[in-house]
Every structure is written in C-alpha cells, then in structure tokens.
C-alpha cells in the first residue's frame, strides 16, 4: 500500500494545494504540519481589497484551508518529520509519534521572512513605530489597518544583496507593499510612501494595484539607510535617486518589507532527506522541473524552492502533485 500513500511536509498554501490535488487523484495523503493549525503564513494575512479586489490571493489560502478540512487528507498538526528510509515507492517516514509507509514525499516547508532585526540602522526592535510587513498583515487581519497618518514602506529588506548571500529578488514584497499601502490609504486615509530600489509591478494580477498605486501612493526610488526616533515618530534618512540628494523625512509608522529567506529548518531537513540546497539556500529544484528535488521520490512545492507568492505557490504545489502521481503510477506498474 506504500505506493498509494504520500506524505506532504508543511501545511502552507503549497502543501495544502499539493495534498488536495493528490487526494483528488485518489492518493492517501498525510499532511504533516509543525504548527497547531494548518494554513501556513497566508491564512493569517489580510484581504487587501480597496474599492476593488487587488488580486492578492489571500482568499485562496482560506479556500484551501476549508477544502482541506472537508477532504480525506489525514492531518497531523504539531508534528515534524524525524527520519526517512527506503526508496521511491516504498519509504518509511518517521514523524512525531508515528511511522508511515509512503511512496513519495512532498516538501513544502515554506520560507522565513528576512530577520528585520538584522538591520539595526532601520530601527526594528529599537523603535516601536518600526514594524515588519508580516506584523502589519496580522494586525490588518485581526483589527483592520492601524491609525497612522504618514506611513513608509521600506523595500528590499533582506533581498537583492549578494553580500548577505541573498542576491535575488524576493518577488512578493513590492506586490504586498503596494497592496497593503493602498489598503491603508483606502481604509485609514493614510499618506503612504514606498521607498524602493526597482519597483516590481509586473503581472496581470498586479494590474489594478499598479494603476491605483501610481495614483494613490508616493513612490520614491531610494531605500532609507537609517531610522531615528523623534518626538513625532520616526525620521528616515534616504537618498532620493531620481530627484537627487540625501533627505530626511518623518513618519508615524515605518513598515519593513522583509524578503523571503529559506525556512529555518531547510538545511537540517536537506541533511535528513539527503537532498541538495542551491546557492541561495533554498532546496534545489531539477532544471526545468523545479518541483523535483535532487533525490527521486522527494518533491518540492512552493517557497521552500524559491520565493513564490500565494498563487504561484499553489500552482507549484499542484505541479508537484502531478509529478508524484505520475511517478507513483509508474512505480506501481513496474
């Protein structure tokens, strides 16, 4: 029966999408999630609709969570993978408190946001009015937007700098910052400034947000280097690339758009599973088939392989599921 069983590691959007796709293809799926509830990061994010849907994709996380609850997928929360033996089609996976016989393993362990405290000059941890975008997401989700008039978003915190070993664009931060910013404008009448290096506004799903952001947000090329606490909030020092010159400006709230780093367990899990990581620390996908890891029988889904937004992670999870199903059918018929 092992070849009918699939273990999905991680219950974020990619893991849920992979598990649900596999269940729809009649596989016996166990979803292992280290947290107490499935859903991952995206289920805690806020809808960013203004007067129109900005296609942020957060509702998709909710859809998947509901679908998962109604599906035959066996959910094991508060559980981790402890060991894996065997070969494709016949693995024995040890998870907290149980041993499972599975044919394949989908790794969907997600990401870690760049640690904002790693940039002490930007004031995170030192100044109360400096928060991360994930903190703003959670706050908006539970209480709605904060009442701050002058709000600044600082892009590329932890992205696009080979010096930190992060010589890549995290892809999701410009879209989320613009959408969150528009939400603050629409619901809390804030004045929002976005400080960026290069604004990433490509994509059909960004069409509405892009158009609204160019009208409703102040977009400044040049990322602040320093934040200082002043009586009326936070003062940011930045170089305005397009207008020229170093300037200082005060804000009531500063949001650090932290990039996507590999999840905290990535290195340890790579060792445990015997799969490779790439130069940026994410699990290494097969060239042209990024959903396959370096080891047969082990597959990758979502942001554990490279930075991906919600919709892309879901697509990647489904792609991994299709490959698992095809390979397991092959194993069975061999």
């Amino acid at each position, binding site marked *: 029966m092992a070849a009918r069983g699939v273990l999905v590691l991680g219950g974020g959007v990619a893991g849920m999408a992979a598990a649900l796709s596999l269940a729809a293809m*009649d596989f016996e799926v166990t979803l292992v999630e280290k947290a107490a509830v499935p859903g991952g990061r995206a289920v805690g994010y806020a809808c960013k609709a203004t007067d129109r849907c900005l296609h942020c994709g957060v509702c998709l996380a909710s859809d998947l969570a509901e679908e998962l609850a109604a599906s035959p997928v066996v959910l094991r929360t508060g559980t981790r993978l402890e060991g894996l033996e065997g070969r494709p089609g016949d693995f024995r996976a040890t998870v907290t408190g149980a041993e499972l016989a599975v044919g394949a393993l989908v790794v969907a362990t997600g990401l870690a946001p760049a640690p904002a405290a790693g940039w002490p000059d930007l004031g995170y941890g030192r100044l109360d009015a400096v928060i991360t975008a994930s903190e703003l997401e959670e706050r908006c989700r539970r209480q709605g937007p904060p009442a701050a008039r002058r709000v600044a978003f600082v892009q590329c915190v932890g992205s*696009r700098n080979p010096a930190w070993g992060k010589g*890549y664009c995290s*892809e999701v931060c410009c879209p989320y910052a613009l959408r969150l910013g528009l939400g603050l404008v629409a619901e809390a009448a804030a004045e929002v400034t976005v400080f960026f290096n*290069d604004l*990433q506004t*490509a994509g059909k799903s960004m069409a509405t947000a892009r158009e609204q952001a160019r009208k409703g947000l102040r977009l400044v090329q040049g990322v602040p280097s320093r934040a200082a606490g002043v009586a009326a909030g936070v003062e940011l020092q930045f170089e305005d690339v397009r207008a020229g010159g170093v300037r200082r400006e005060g804000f009531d709230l500063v949001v650090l758009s932290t990039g996507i780093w590999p999840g905290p367990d990535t290195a340890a899990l790579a060792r445990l599973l015997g799969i490779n990581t790439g130069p940026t620390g994410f699990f290494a996908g097969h060239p042209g088939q990024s959903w396959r890891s370096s080891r047969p029988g082990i597959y990758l889904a979502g942001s554990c392989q490279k930075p991906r937004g919600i919709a892309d992670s879901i697509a990647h*999870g*489904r792609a991994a599921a299709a490959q698992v199903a*095809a390979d397991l059918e092959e194993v069975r018929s061999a």
Partner: protein
Amino acid sequence: MKVEVAVVGAGPSGLSCAAALVRLGRKVAVLEAAEATGGTLRAAPGYLAPAAEGRTRLQTLQAAAGPAALLTGHPAGSLSGGPGAFRLEAGNRRLTAGAVVLASGVRRRLSPADHGLEPAYNLLGLSDMARLLADPQASLGRLRGRRVAFFLDVSAPDSLRQQAAAMHLGIAVRRQLAAEVLWFGRDLKVAGDGLEARYREARDLGVTFFRDAGRPPMLTATAGGYRVWAWPEEGGEPVEVAIDLAVLDEREEPCLPQWDLGPRRENSRLGHRSPRPGIFVTGSLRADLDLEGCLVDGVAAAAVADAFLRGLDGLVRAEVDAPRCARCLTCVRLCPHRAMAIAWYREADRAAAKVDKAACRGCGVCVAACPALAITLTTCPDEDIYRQLESGGRTT
C-alpha cells in the same frame, strides 16, 4: 478522434501540460496552429531563456509530450458540447475531449508608433531580435562595436516576460556580437527566476541601464541610426545618446479561439479554471510568466484538469421542473458557467431548460432569477433558506 484532454497550443506551457497529462496516463491531443511545436521556444529559443537553455528545454518538452497526438497545422476551430464531451473542430479534424486546456499564449506585435517612430530596417521588436540571433543566416556581424539599445515599458508596460527577454537578448548581443548594449525602461524587473543574477551579469558585461523617471525616452531617426534623449532624473537634463539599432518592446494580445468562455474578467478565485467548467487556462494566456513559470503552470493545469475528469460524475446541484419552465432563457443567459440550455424532455413531452450537471457548479444564480420558480438547487433549496430564517440563522 476521441481524447480525454485537448490542449490548445504547443508552446512551453502547452507542451509542459501535455507531457504531464501523458505521464498521468491521459489520452491527449495537442492542437497547434503553426507547422511545428515549441511556440516561442522554437521560433526564438533565446527569447524566454539563454538560447542554449531554451533549446534544451524544448527538446525535453518535445520528447516528454511525444506520446500525445500532436496536431500541428491545426488551429482550434469551433467548440460545442460540454464537460466530459466537448466537440472541437481543428482544421480538417474533429475531436471529442473530456476537458480542454487553453495554452495558446499571446501574439506579439511590433508597434513603432507607440515610440513615435516609423517602421524601419534598424528598428526591431524583441522577438525579431531573438529570431535573428537564432538564425545562422542572419548577418549580424556588422553590429560588432555598434550600439544596440532596448526600449521597454512603452508598448507593453510592466511586462515581466519582455523585460526578461530584453535581459537574455542584451547579454547575447553583448557576448555574441560584441556590440555595446543600452537598456531604457521605467522600472527594472528582476522578480523572475534567476533574473537578478542575469541583471548582474549584464551589468558586469557593461550593459548600461537607464531608468526613466516616468517620462519615456524620445527617439529620432538619423542617417543610419537613432538619437535618444532619456530623462533618468526627475526634471533633470536629458541624457543624449546615438544608437545604431533600436529593439522595441511589443504589444501582446491573447490568442483566444472564438469560443464562449463565459463572462470574461480577471478573477482571483478561478486559478487555472475558466468560467466554463472543463475548460482550463494556462501559461502566458493566464499570467505574465517567465519560462520557469510557464513550465510549472502547464503541469499545474494538468493536475487540475486530471482532478476535474475524475470528478465528472459529481452530484446533481440544480434541477429544472420541466413542465413549469417558461423557456424564457433567463437562466441560459445568466448562468456564468454556461451549464443551461433548452433541451427536449421526453417524459414531459416538451422542451425546457436543462442543467448540464457536469458544468453546473451550484451557485444558484439561475434559481433566484427563474421567474417561473422552476429551478431547485438541491444543495441549498429554498426550504433550507427559510428554515434558517425562521430559526434565527446560524450560530456557528
């Protein structure tokens, strides 16, 4: 020909989708209007990726999609029927397919007028440049030491795919032809697979990047080239450069067959689904994807289509009481999933609206609109709603 899935378009996403469906054991036909498969990867391997990588990907995809029936030179014609039994005309062939995946991509068209220019021999679109670079017959040698400039964000603002193409092509022009390369655009896009690294590579090779501050560059034709004025600083003085060849971004239009796909609008919830159940959308048609994105998207669409075929004998959601139907076509007109049609009911000996149960998704829009009160939603009948009303609603 009878297949389980018909894939329309044999570009990277279509081939990737067909290959995945074949691996899943599905019987697949791929309809391609051109005479060969591969789409942009074949016409211009260096457009979506560095040329060598593009060729490798194409070979892998063609091999993997091999077992599917590849109908090249067969553009998709009319579509009828419904989920489980779509009837599709393609050239001289007729197909029956359980599900259809649209992967027909976009058509690119050079539009010099967008840049204030007339067509000229030294004015190329990005895809022209890619084709020339792949063509051993093209005499590009004379570009050695000349200036080639790429202009983005004009005909297709904010296109990730075109910015990636400009990056790949700029590097190729610099390396292969030893020409000087300049890049002009509003925002530099690096949010693609490996794109940041490509950008750094280009910069290290000496490609010059000019980001404009909202005012696009101005070009005028000179004898044998163009003069460019660009404004990298807001309200600042323009930078003036003479170039020999201008490569422009291109307008993109979706290649859609003339089918009724239901109400057409962006929708967050649908993902790979079109409004019409059983018809799926993938690749460039669906989103602004780079090559990696197309490959993932094709396989993801395959998973969705496969799951759909497994669930075809789903539950009956809406039912028509045929004798009550007034045949007013309100439901036919309103159904977002095109699940309603007028059909003959033998037992009632009359024509009335009929639900295609494979296409019905159970929203109840028709039920609420039916003036004859002839439609029931079995999954949420009126009695249920009124019972909830009487009992003070739900508490959880």
